[in-house]
């Protein structure tokens, strides 16, 4: 499965992780938070109107991304080691600068990050659903909500991204940033989602 420049959809879609129709819904957002696509297969509960729902979903993803970037336990360890060795005013200034760099690298909560920057999450699970998330380098976010017992869907989301590239991005009638109204994409997506989840 390639991420960039695939000239055709990869011949073998990822192996199904479970059987039966467990997918609930799917969202596609662009980097400005516009919901380009919303598909619903099985959703008995609607708590909000669609617009509010999309906004809330995008907000949740945005905040979770900034939370995971902040929490990343593998980043930065060199600054905090050596405070006691700094003696002079100058060194304190350097230390402050390093601290500033550190907070910039790790991201402050609520400050937007570029796609691919910082540590991101790829799924979360509650007792009633599992949400899988993928962000492309161009900032398009794919969200698939499925049954909580579904396995890892990262490959599936990459496949869906390939479908998007083939049927939407390469469609001459499609203007980027507008709602996706491509019959072919919808049918291919429906078919594929039915097979995976």
């Amino acid at each position: 499965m390639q991420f960039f420049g695939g000239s055709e959809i990869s011949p073998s879609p990822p192996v199904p992780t479970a059987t039966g129709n467990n997918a609930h819904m799917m969202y596609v957002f662009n980097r400005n938070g516009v919901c380009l696509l919303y598909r619903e297969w099985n959703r008995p509960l609607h708590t909000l109107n669609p617009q509010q729902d999309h906004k809330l979903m995008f907000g949740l993803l945005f905040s979770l991304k900034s939370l995971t970037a902040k929490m990343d336990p593998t980043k930065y360890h060199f600054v905090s080691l050596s405070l006691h060795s700094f003696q002079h005013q100058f060194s304190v200034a350097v230390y402050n600068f390093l601290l500033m760099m550190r907070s910039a690298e790790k991201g402050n909560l609520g400050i937007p990050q570029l796609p691919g920057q910082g540590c991101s999450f790829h799924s979360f699970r509650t007792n009633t659903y599992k949400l899988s998330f993928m962000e492309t380098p161009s900032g398009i976010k794919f969200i698939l909500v499925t049954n909580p017992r579904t396995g890892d869907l990262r490959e599936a989301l990459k496949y869906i991204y390939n479908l998007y590239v083939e049927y939407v991005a390469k469609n001459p009638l499609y203007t980027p940033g507008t709602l996706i109204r491509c019959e072919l994409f919808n049918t291919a997506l429906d078919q594929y989602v039915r097979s995976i989840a």
Partner: protein
Amino acid sequence: MTSQFPVPQNQTNSFPSNKFRVLSSILLTMAAIYSLYIINKSGGLIFYKDYGSKGRMDTNDSLRVASLWHSMHAISQQLSPTTGCSGIELLEADTFDLHCFQSLTGTKFFVVCEPGTQHMEALLKVVYELYTDYVLKNPFYEMEMPIRCELFDINLTQAVQKDRVALLGR
């Protein structure tokens, strides 16, 4: 003479325990668990312990992260496609997993660990048990306030240690 300088009777006997000590010390530095948080029902951080993650958060950031988690947990319930959702139980990120357990009273316990670490739900239940035993039953503890109980700290350290030793057995 002999009582002053006791010589080990059998060298081979002491070897396995030495090996175990070395192994467990390696394990302790491996840090399967990065940190543990407890937040009260209104999202305030009442306990935070770091188990050797590289980027230790300062107090302000840990408070912010805790209350942010509280709201994310609530929003995830709103977005559920079916009824009866009780919030995020597991968040999987590139470099860590976050397991969350919410008690009936709304206190949330969450642990940040290495991706793919098993048995974290059990550990959170144990932490909850310790919380009820050594924090809630402490007559000097005020509800919803930061936890400062020595017994809780001691037993928590033991529980986490035990969890790491259990990992060795796998």
